[in-house]
């Protein structure tokens, strides 16, 4: 009964989404205020319906209702309750429902936020979000219904894929999707602006906090995915340039460019059409990514035989949404011209470089990810692209970006006058280089050529980012949250660059075969294998190994890697033992039983790898701080239809710095 209720709720949600889209877009167009006002109840109704649907599905999981096909395929009576809930997003149909639910949450938040904005504009934003929701709901109901019944019901479920039975799985998809879906808001703002013909600096200011919020969530989501892959399935690897990873990384890159472009549009009314395009592009990449990994068009030669129906549906949806938005763009953009100017050394220049380099990076990842498909389509044969392609090409645009960041944060708007800062910049660079060399050659050793470069850049970013806030505090000037947020986020980036450099330069990995009692040395560490014994868990059994670790002869710790076989799916997973000591992660994983008590074992020492994810988190926190700046909460004073006066809005205190 409950699954049918959930199914019905989704149908109602579809209708409400349709109404939301209709009232939101047509209402303002024909000037019917009653229609325009009808959007908000539609939003609320949709949220209730989708919430009901997802509640029904969760209930089906928790109550072991194996008459629901999706539950039967992804759960099991022996599965701990916690994972029965998270299994909801373990496969296609459920994760789609999660997508829809999060979109609904964002829409509700936006409907509250735009209540302070001109009504027609707000309605248009919600209307566009309604179109997106409509498309997804239609797709779900037509091709991916999670409430399909299984008749007769299965006696028990097929169990959740063991690698997904992990706490990180609980938070990774929801947070990732929150970011992914969140770019729909910027997209909606852009479309609303284009529909209305209102394309001014105020629009940029309204859009900024939403975009930054989505970006922050996406940053966390990607970092969580990387972390999860590291300890759950990567055996020490944390980024593979896999199409699924790239699908979330491309929107992030464009989203970062968007955040910065919005700053320029907000501040000086420049780059308006470019910002619009980026806003459309970011969400387009989200859409493209979500679906590429589900339609089976991509991935690799050995992808699952795709269900062409799903693929076609998605493609039509993409054409409607992205094609529609880009058509609007082609229509409105030519009218956007600004007479503002800026010098070479001005902040606008640096943000221009920032945007160009980020977009190039995104385009490179895009090319590499789609290359196999393009090559195949054009009959150029099967191509395969992996880390050996992505790593150097990605760095080609990112290294200059990092270098320019150090200077850019000190450039003033419009006139720049970077020359005044030369001494400070050179000093910080010298300090950074010195510290970078210490890290590269003294603390660790055997680095590569790029190691001191990367370390210097990372440290320099941190130092230059700190100069301005420290100066302000010293001079008792105001320090708005936007500046604090920016500083924190940039510091996060600097830490990230530093961590990435050390991890990639100084990781040591040994695969060895050890008999019981044998040991191997890695740097100052010695790893002694002390055999395996059988282990058992709630829904698995296996073997656990014991590895005793010493450092410079002194006992350090004991590690317990495991190999588990899950009862139901009979899959074997490897649970690596990971511990952090002295800033480095020690990872030990069991390989194969080689017979006669010998096992092949992977040992990996990764310095500073936890900093990689911590840095990403810091970036996200910076974003969070920035978007809480009070200027975003100022009520808009512009009347509907009145000409919008750029720049002179009095809501900013004097002496506030450029951000």
């Amino acid at each position: 009964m409950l699954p049918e209720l959930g199914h019905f709720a989704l149908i109602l949600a579809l209708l409400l989404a349709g109404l939301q889209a209709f009232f939101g877009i047509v209402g303002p167009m024909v000037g019917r205020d009653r229609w325009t006002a009808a959007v908000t109840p539609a939003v609320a109704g949709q949220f209730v319906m989708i919430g009901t649907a997802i509640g029904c599905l969760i209930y089906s999981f928790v109550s072991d209702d194996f008459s629901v096909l999706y539950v039967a395929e992804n759960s099991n009576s022996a599965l701990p309750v916690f994972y029965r809930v998270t299994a909801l997003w373990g496969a296609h149909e459920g994760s789609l429902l999660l997508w829809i639910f999060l979109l609904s949450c964002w829409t509700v938040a936006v409907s509250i936020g735009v209540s302070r904005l001109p009504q027609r504009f707000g309605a248009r934003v919600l209307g566009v979000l309604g179109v997106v929701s409509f498309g997804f709901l239609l797709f779900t109901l037509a091709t991916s219904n999670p409430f399909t019944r299984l008749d007769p019901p299965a006696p028990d479920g097929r169990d959740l894929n063991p690698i997904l039975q992990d706490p990180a799985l609980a938070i990774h998809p929801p947070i990732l999707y929150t970011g992914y879906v969140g770019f729909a808001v910027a997209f909606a703002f852009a479309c609303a602006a284009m529909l209305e013909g209102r394309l001014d600096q105020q629009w940029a200011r309204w859009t900024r906090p939403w975009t930054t919020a989505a970006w922050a969530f996406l940053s966390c989501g990607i970092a969580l995915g990387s972390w999860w892959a590291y300890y759950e399935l990567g055996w020490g690897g944390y980024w593979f340039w896999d199409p699924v990873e790239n699908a979330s990384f491309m929107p992030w890159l464009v989203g970062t460019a968007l955040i910065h472009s919005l700053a320029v549009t907000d501040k000086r009314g420049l780059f308006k059409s470019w910002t619009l395009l980026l806003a459309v592009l970011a969400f387009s990449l989200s859409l493209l990514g979500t679906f590429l990994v589900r339609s089976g068009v991509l991935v690799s030669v050995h992808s699952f035989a795709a269900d062409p129906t799903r693929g076609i549906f998605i493609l039509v949806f993409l054409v409607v949404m992205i094609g529609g938005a880009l058509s609007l763009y082609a229509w409105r953009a030519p009218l956007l011209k600004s007479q503002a100017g800026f010098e070479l050394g001005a902040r606008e220049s640096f943000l221009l470089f920032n945007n160009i380099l980020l977009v190039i990076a995104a385009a490179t990842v895009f090319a590499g990810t789609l290359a196999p498909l393009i090559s195949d389509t054009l009959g150029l044969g099967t191509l395969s692209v992996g880390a050996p392609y992505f790593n150097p090409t990605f760095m080609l645009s990112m290294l200059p970006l990092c270098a320019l960041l150090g200077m850019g944060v000190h450039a003033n708007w419009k006139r720049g006058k970077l020359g005044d800062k030369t001494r400070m910049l050179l000093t910080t660079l010298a300090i950074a280089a010195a510290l970078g060399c210490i890290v590269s050659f003294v603390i660790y050793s055997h680095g590569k050529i790029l190691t001191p470069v990367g370390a210097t850049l990372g440290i320099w970013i941190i130092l230059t980012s700190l100069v301005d806030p420290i100066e302000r505090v010293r001079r008792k000037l105001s320090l708005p949250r936007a500046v604090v947020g920016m500083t924190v986020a940039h510091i996060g980036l600097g830490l990230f660059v530093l961590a990435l450099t050390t991890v990639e330069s100084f990781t040591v990995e040994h695969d060895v075969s050890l008999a019981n009692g044998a040991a191997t040395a890695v740097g100052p560490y010695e790893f002694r294998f002390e055999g395996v014994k059988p282990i058992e868990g709630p829904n698995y059994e296996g073997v656990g190994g014991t590895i005793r670790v010493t450092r410079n002869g002194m006992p350090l710790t004991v590690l317990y890697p495991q190999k588990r076989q899950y009862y139901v799916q009979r899959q074997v997973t490897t649970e690596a033992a990971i511990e952090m000591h002295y800033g480095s992660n020690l990872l030990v994983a069991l390989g194969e039983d080689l017979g006669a008590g010998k096992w092949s074992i992977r040992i990996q020492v990764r310095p500073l790898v936890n900093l990689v994810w911590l840095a990403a988190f810091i970036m996200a926190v910076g974003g969070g701080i920035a978007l809480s700046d009070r200027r975003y909460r100022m009520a808009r004073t512009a009347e509907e239809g009145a000409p919008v006066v750029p720049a002179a809005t009095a809501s900013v205190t004097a002496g506030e710095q450029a951000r």
Partner: protein
Amino acid sequence: MNRFLIPLGVFGLLVIVLAVGIKRSPEKGIIVSPLLGKPAPEFALPSLTDPAHVVKSSDLRGRWYVFNVWGTWCGGCRAEHNTLMEIRQSGAVPIIGMDWRDSESEALSMLQQMGNPYETIAVDKDGREAVDWGVYGAPETFLVNDKGVVVYKYVGPITPDAWQKEFLPRLPQRQAGAPAQPSKS
């Protein structure tokens, strides 16, 4: 020309690529073998049924044959077994089997149970020969002509449909009607 139409244009191209990709996605599981049109790898492996006897590729020169890579551990191989038996009945072309990374005893007992469609079976115990043929999954089936050149490769279990559409048309006409070959036991 309105340069703001460029994004839309690029998107249009992308849609075309994706559409073609979807249309061709059922074929995605298969890569084109680089062996097509090239001489089949030479091999000399022990026979499954008589380990003392060596199955040599040179002995097969001069006639068409189907080279089928299989194993008892492979579900798809069991699935295609009936089709292979039918091909054997039709006598169109001999099937040479290669038992890939398998246990001889289990292989023999499977053939006992399900019938033996092969004229002879080579044993590739350690997988070296399979690598030489560019095999990456079982079952895989090659069609080799009388000059020893690989004419066609099929990945996955052979279905009667595939046999009709892909293999038969490639055989020389008179071969398709030839009587069943005596099998070496």
